[in-house]
Protein backbone atom coordinates (compact mmCIF):
# COMPACT_ATOMS: atom_id res chain seq x y z
CA UNK A 1 0.00 0.00 0.00
CA UNK A 2 1.37 3.36 -1.04
CA UNK A 3 -0.39 5.43 1.61
CA UNK A 4 -0.90 4.32 5.20
CA UNK A 5 -2.34 6.06 8.25
CA UNK A 6 -1.89 4.10 11.45
CA UNK A 7 -1.44 4.42 15.20
CA UNK A 8 1.15 1.67 15.57
CA UNK A 9 4.88 2.25 15.04
CA UNK A 10 6.51 1.22 11.77
CA UNK A 11 9.90 -0.31 11.04
CA UNK A 12 11.60 2.21 8.78
CA UNK A 13 14.32 -0.24 7.71
CA UNK A 14 11.84 -2.94 6.74
CA UNK A 15 9.61 -0.43 4.95
CA UNK A 16 12.50 0.95 2.91
CA UNK A 17 13.74 -2.57 2.09
CA UNK A 18 10.29 -3.59 0.84
CA UNK A 19 9.90 -0.35 -1.12
CA UNK A 20 13.32 -0.75 -2.72
CA UNK A 21 12.50 -4.32 -3.75
CA UNK A 22 9.23 -3.16 -5.26
CA UNK A 23 10.93 -0.51 -7.42
CA UNK A 24 13.72 -2.74 -8.70
CA UNK A 25 15.19 -0.98 -11.73
CA UNK A 26 15.01 2.51 -10.28
CA UNK A 27 18.39 4.17 -9.80
CA UNK A 28 17.54 6.33 -6.81
CA UNK A 29 15.53 5.99 -3.61
CA UNK A 30 15.09 8.99 -1.29
CA UNK A 31 13.60 8.54 2.17
CA UNK A 32 12.69 10.97 4.91
CA UNK A 33 11.30 10.37 8.35
CA UNK A 34 10.02 12.87 10.88
CA UNK A 35 10.49 12.33 14.63
CA UNK A 36 8.88 13.77 17.72
CA UNK A 37 11.22 16.57 18.80
CA UNK A 38 11.50 17.77 22.39
CA UNK A 39 13.22 21.16 22.23
CA UNK A 40 12.74 22.20 25.83
CA UNK A 41 13.10 18.81 27.48
CA UNK A 42 9.57 19.15 28.88
CA UNK A 43 7.54 17.22 26.33
CA UNK A 44 5.66 14.20 27.69
CA UNK A 45 3.89 13.28 24.44
CA UNK A 46 2.86 14.50 21.03
CA UNK A 47 -0.78 13.78 20.31
CA UNK A 48 -1.73 13.62 16.66
CA UNK A 49 -5.36 13.96 15.67
CA UNK A 50 -6.57 13.14 12.17
CA UNK A 51 -9.73 13.28 10.08
CA UNK A 52 -10.56 9.65 9.24
CA UNK A 53 -11.91 9.31 5.72
CA UNK A 54 -10.55 12.61 4.48
CA UNK A 55 -6.95 11.89 5.44
CA UNK A 56 -6.60 8.85 3.19
CA UNK A 57 -8.03 10.79 0.24
CA UNK A 58 -5.80 13.80 0.93
CA UNK A 59 -2.66 11.66 1.08
CA UNK A 60 -3.63 9.79 -2.10
CA UNK A 61 -4.15 13.12 -3.84
CA UNK A 62 -0.78 14.48 -2.69
CA UNK A 63 0.96 11.28 -3.79
CA UNK A 64 -0.80 11.35 -7.18
CA UNK A 65 0.34 14.95 -7.72
CA UNK A 66 3.95 13.93 -7.11
CA UNK A 67 3.62 10.89 -9.40
CA UNK A 68 2.21 13.12 -12.16
CA UNK A 69 4.78 15.82 -11.82
CA UNK A 70 8.03 13.86 -11.66
CA UNK A 71 9.22 10.75 -13.36
CA UNK A 72 8.86 8.36 -10.42
CA UNK A 73 8.84 4.60 -10.21
CA UNK A 74 6.83 4.83 -6.97
CA UNK A 75 6.16 6.96 -3.89
CA UNK A 76 4.91 6.01 -0.44
CA UNK A 77 3.68 7.81 2.66
CA UNK A 78 3.20 6.44 6.17
CA UNK A 79 1.84 8.79 8.86
CA UNK A 80 0.93 7.90 12.43
CA UNK A 81 -1.74 9.28 14.73
CA UNK A 82 -2.38 8.97 18.45
CA UNK A 83 -0.05 9.64 21.36
CA UNK A 84 3.67 9.53 20.53
CA UNK A 85 6.68 9.94 22.80
CA UNK A 86 9.77 12.09 22.14
CA UNK A 87 12.09 10.40 19.66
CA UNK A 88 9.37 8.26 18.11
CA UNK A 89 8.86 8.28 14.36
CA UNK A 90 5.79 10.27 13.29
CA UNK A 91 5.89 9.66 9.56
CA UNK A 92 7.99 8.71 6.57
CA UNK A 93 8.00 9.25 2.83
CA UNK A 94 9.96 7.35 0.21
CA UNK A 95 10.32 8.13 -3.48
CA UNK A 96 11.99 6.13 -6.21
CA UNK A 97 13.10 7.37 -9.61
CA UNK A 98 15.54 6.63 -12.39
CA UNK A 99 17.68 9.59 -11.29
CA UNK A 100 18.11 11.28 -7.94
CA UNK A 101 16.85 14.77 -8.86
CA UNK A 102 13.29 13.55 -9.39
CA UNK A 103 13.36 11.49 -6.20
CA UNK A 104 14.68 14.38 -4.07
CA UNK A 105 12.27 16.96 -5.48
CA UNK A 106 9.27 14.67 -5.13
CA UNK A 107 10.13 13.84 -1.50
CA UNK A 108 10.53 17.56 -0.73
CA UNK A 109 7.17 18.27 -2.39
CA UNK A 110 5.44 15.48 -0.44
CA UNK A 111 6.75 16.90 2.83
CA UNK A 112 5.65 20.45 2.05
CA UNK A 113 2.14 19.25 1.21
CA UNK A 114 1.92 16.92 4.21
CA UNK A 115 2.70 19.87 6.50
CA UNK A 116 -0.25 22.01 5.52
CA UNK A 117 -2.64 20.07 3.27
CA UNK A 118 -3.10 16.79 5.13
CA UNK A 119 -5.73 16.89 7.89
CA UNK A 120 -3.50 16.15 10.88
CA UNK A 121 -3.22 18.33 13.99
CA UNK A 122 -0.44 18.08 16.54
CA UNK A 123 -0.78 18.80 20.22
CA UNK A 124 2.21 19.00 22.53
CA UNK A 125 1.51 17.59 25.97
CA UNK A 126 4.00 18.89 28.51
CA UNK A 127 4.42 18.57 32.23
CA UNK A 128 2.49 21.81 32.77
CA UNK A 129 -0.29 21.41 30.24
CA UNK A 130 -1.05 20.85 26.61
CA UNK A 131 -0.92 23.14 23.59
CA UNK A 132 -1.92 22.77 19.95
CA UNK A 133 0.98 23.29 17.58
CA UNK A 134 0.34 26.40 15.48
CA UNK A 135 0.81 26.23 11.73
CA UNK A 136 3.76 28.32 10.58
CA UNK A 137 3.51 30.96 7.88
CA UNK A 138 6.59 29.42 6.31
CA UNK A 139 4.70 26.11 5.88
CA UNK A 140 2.16 27.90 3.74
CA UNK A 141 4.75 29.90 1.79
CA UNK A 142 6.72 26.69 1.18
CA UNK A 143 3.84 25.54 -1.04
CA UNK A 144 4.31 28.51 -3.35
CA UNK A 145 7.65 27.02 -4.38
CA UNK A 146 5.69 24.34 -6.20
CA UNK A 147 3.37 26.63 -8.14
CA UNK A 148 3.74 26.00 -11.81
CA UNK A 149 4.41 29.17 -13.76
Amino acid at each position, binding site marked *: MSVRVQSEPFDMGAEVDAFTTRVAGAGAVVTFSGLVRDDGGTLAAMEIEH*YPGMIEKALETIRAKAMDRWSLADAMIIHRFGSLRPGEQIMMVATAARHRADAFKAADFLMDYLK*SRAPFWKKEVGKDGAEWVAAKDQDESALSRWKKS
Partner: protein
Amino acid sequence: MIDVLYFAWLRERIGAPREQIETSAATVAELVEELKTRSDAHALAFSDMASVRVAVDQELSEMSAEISGAREIAFFPPMTGG
Protein backbone atom coordinates in the same frame (compact mmCIF):
# COMPACT_ATOMS: atom_id res chain seq x y z
CA MET B 1 -29.69 16.92 7.97
CA ILE B 2 -26.03 17.67 7.68
CA ASP B 3 -23.11 16.33 9.73
CA VAL B 4 -20.88 19.05 11.13
CA LEU B 5 -17.47 17.85 12.35
CA TYR B 6 -14.92 19.64 14.50
CA PHE B 7 -11.24 18.88 14.97
CA ALA B 8 -8.40 19.98 17.27
CA TRP B 9 -9.12 23.15 19.28
CA LEU B 10 -12.43 23.73 17.51
CA ARG B 11 -13.59 20.34 18.83
CA GLU B 12 -12.35 21.23 22.32
CA ARG B 13 -13.97 24.67 22.36
CA ILE B 14 -17.29 23.38 21.10
CA GLY B 15 -17.14 20.36 23.37
CA ALA B 16 -18.18 17.77 20.78
CA PRO B 17 -16.57 16.10 17.77
CA ARG B 18 -19.72 16.26 15.65
CA GLU B 19 -23.32 17.33 15.58
CA GLN B 20 -26.20 16.83 13.19
CA ILE B 21 -28.06 19.94 12.24
CA GLU B 22 -30.89 21.07 10.05
CA THR B 23 -29.86 24.10 8.04
CA SER B 24 -31.01 26.24 5.18
CA ALA B 25 -27.60 27.90 4.80
CA ALA B 26 -26.53 28.26 1.17
CA THR B 27 -22.82 28.67 1.84
CA VAL B 28 -20.25 27.67 4.45
CA ALA B 29 -20.13 31.27 5.68
CA GLU B 30 -23.89 31.28 6.24
CA LEU B 31 -23.63 27.98 8.09
CA VAL B 32 -20.96 29.48 10.36
CA GLU B 33 -23.27 32.40 11.20
CA GLU B 34 -25.99 29.89 12.14
CA LEU B 35 -23.61 27.79 14.22
CA LYS B 36 -22.43 30.86 16.14
CA THR B 37 -25.94 31.33 17.50
CA ARG B 38 -26.10 27.79 18.94
CA SER B 39 -24.06 28.53 22.08
CA ASP B 40 -21.40 30.78 23.59
CA ALA B 41 -18.91 27.98 22.95
CA HIS B 42 -19.75 27.99 19.24
CA ALA B 43 -19.48 31.77 19.11
CA LEU B 44 -16.05 31.61 20.73
CA ALA B 45 -14.84 28.79 18.47
CA PHE B 46 -15.79 30.80 15.37
CA SER B 47 -14.64 34.20 16.68
CA ASP B 48 -11.41 34.20 14.66
CA MET B 49 -12.22 32.94 11.19
CA ALA B 50 -8.67 33.60 9.95
CA SER B 51 -7.65 30.47 11.86
CA VAL B 52 -10.51 28.25 10.72
CA ARG B 53 -10.37 25.99 7.67
CA VAL B 54 -13.23 24.02 6.16
CA ALA B 55 -13.74 20.80 4.22
CA VAL B 56 -16.99 20.11 2.38
CA ASP B 57 -17.59 16.38 1.91
CA GLN B 58 -13.93 15.77 2.80
CA GLU B 59 -12.50 18.19 0.22
CA LEU B 60 -10.72 21.35 1.34
CA SER B 61 -12.95 24.26 0.50
CA GLU B 62 -13.58 27.98 0.97
CA MET B 63 -15.96 29.84 3.28
CA SER B 64 -17.78 31.13 0.19
CA ALA B 65 -18.43 27.59 -1.09
CA GLU B 66 -22.02 26.52 -1.68
CA ILE B 67 -23.18 23.62 0.44
CA SER B 68 -26.45 22.53 -1.13
CA GLY B 69 -26.42 18.73 -1.21
CA ALA B 70 -23.37 18.46 1.05
CA ARG B 71 -23.50 15.69 3.66
CA GLU B 72 -20.48 16.45 5.82
CA ILE B 73 -18.87 19.77 6.66
CA ALA B 74 -15.75 19.82 8.82
CA PHE B 75 -14.18 22.80 10.59
CA PHE B 76 -10.62 22.77 11.87
CA PRO B 77 -7.54 24.92 12.42
CA PRO B 78 -4.71 25.09 9.84
CA MET B 79 -3.26 21.60 9.48
CA THR B 80 0.03 20.60 11.07
CA GLY B 81 1.07 17.29 9.55
CA GLY B 82 4.51 15.97 8.67
